[in-house]
């Protein structure tokens, strides 16, 4: 039985680095990543699990970090947008207008990146299913669609 009461130091594996943070059990992963670890890529959009601006990868799967305890991420590999290094999806978002104001972008990138990794030949149904998890108010989703399609095409040609 693991017991944690009050402030505790935990280790989190973020973007391939082991980082320490002092947390209270009820602290969310989003707040700990942003405020204790200084990674501001994941955003606070609603803190209700609705908008997806807080999306990070946990062992390769997209999760909404605002609805997860930081404790639940211990021992797992966390990746934020800061951990994406010159990926094709980032380039595609710039080229194809996958964003305008940019606030939802890091969440969308994490989700799209994970999807293209897990299901490279995702069809419209699969893409729609994954990407309807995130809200964007600026683009009408057209640029995001184009960016994802571009990455799929490029990956296929390799």
């Amino acid at each position, binding site marked *: 039985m693991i017991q944690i009461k009050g402030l505790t130091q935990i280790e989190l594996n973020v973007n391939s680095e082991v980082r320490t943070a002092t947390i209270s059990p009820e602290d969310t992963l989003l707040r700990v990543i942003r405020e204790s670890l200084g990674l501001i890529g994941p955003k606070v959009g609603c803190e209700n699990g609705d908008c997806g601006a807080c999306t990070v990868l946990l062992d390769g799967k997209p999760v909404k970090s605002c609805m997860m305890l930081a404790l*639940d991420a211990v021992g797992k590999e966390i990746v934020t947008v800061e951990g994406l290094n010159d990926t094709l999806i980032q380039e595609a978002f710039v080229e194809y207008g996958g964003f305008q104001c940019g606030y939802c972008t890091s969440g969308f990138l994490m989700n799209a990146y994970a999807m293209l990794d897990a299901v490279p030949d995702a069809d419209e149904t699969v893409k729609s299913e994954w990407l309807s998890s995130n809200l964007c108010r600026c683009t009408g989703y057209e640029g995001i669609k184009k960016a994802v399609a571009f990455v799929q095409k490029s990956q296929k040609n390799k």
Partner: protein
Amino acid sequence: MDYYKAETPEEAVGQMGQLTDEGLQAVYYAGGTEIVTNIRKGALKVDAFIDLKGIPEMHLIEVKDDKIILGANVTLNQIIEHPETAFLKPILDKIADHTVRNVLTLGGNICGRLPYREAVLPLLALDADIEVCAQEGVEIYKLRDLFDKRLKLPKGTFLYRIHLLKNRNTLFSRRETEHTAVDYPILHTVLYSDDKKRTVFMGISGFAAFPIYSVVDRKEETAEAVVKRMLQEVESLAKSDDRAGADYRLNLLQVHLNEWLGGKL
């Protein structure tokens, strides 16, 4: 808030018992999507969490002989992606959204505070057995015996595993929302016809204030007659809320039933 992570079912129920004796409010949790957001909003106040994710067998989907055994900690996406349980995909893949389903567990959807519990509908249809952990040990129940509006677990116990028989017919399901698909249901209908027992099952969520279901013995009746009876039983339970009126819900239920009748029974 204090945090406990159990490694065995005994540890979990034991800790819950202890905290309750001390007069403290504790909750079991796995995915945590609901409790974390409720705590932020001030809608839930607890003194302690008891994390069940340390219990390994609760994360498994096992197939033994003619049975499928689902641990309550299995996420909805894991169920959808597993070949033996992929038949549940049409029902499960509409709950919440894809990202949330990476964390939302079967147990969480059934036992949480939200009144939809859509994942329970196919389990009721297939007359599932459930294992419940209590201080005295693991107890087995018929899901149908414990489910009435919600899963009526004895105090201090938790849902451990769910058992389904492998052999089954096709489940029929249709889900409607107010407009956009990522939303709570205004009606989620699951219909199932059991050839061996000659029963017809209807389970609906989002229609009333809680999920309702009925299992009707077909006897010598036509499918249409059975359906008409089932409809009459639930008509008055249709709710009107922010998302839809009772009349509209009823209309949609009739459309779903008509569609099912159009197929083979």
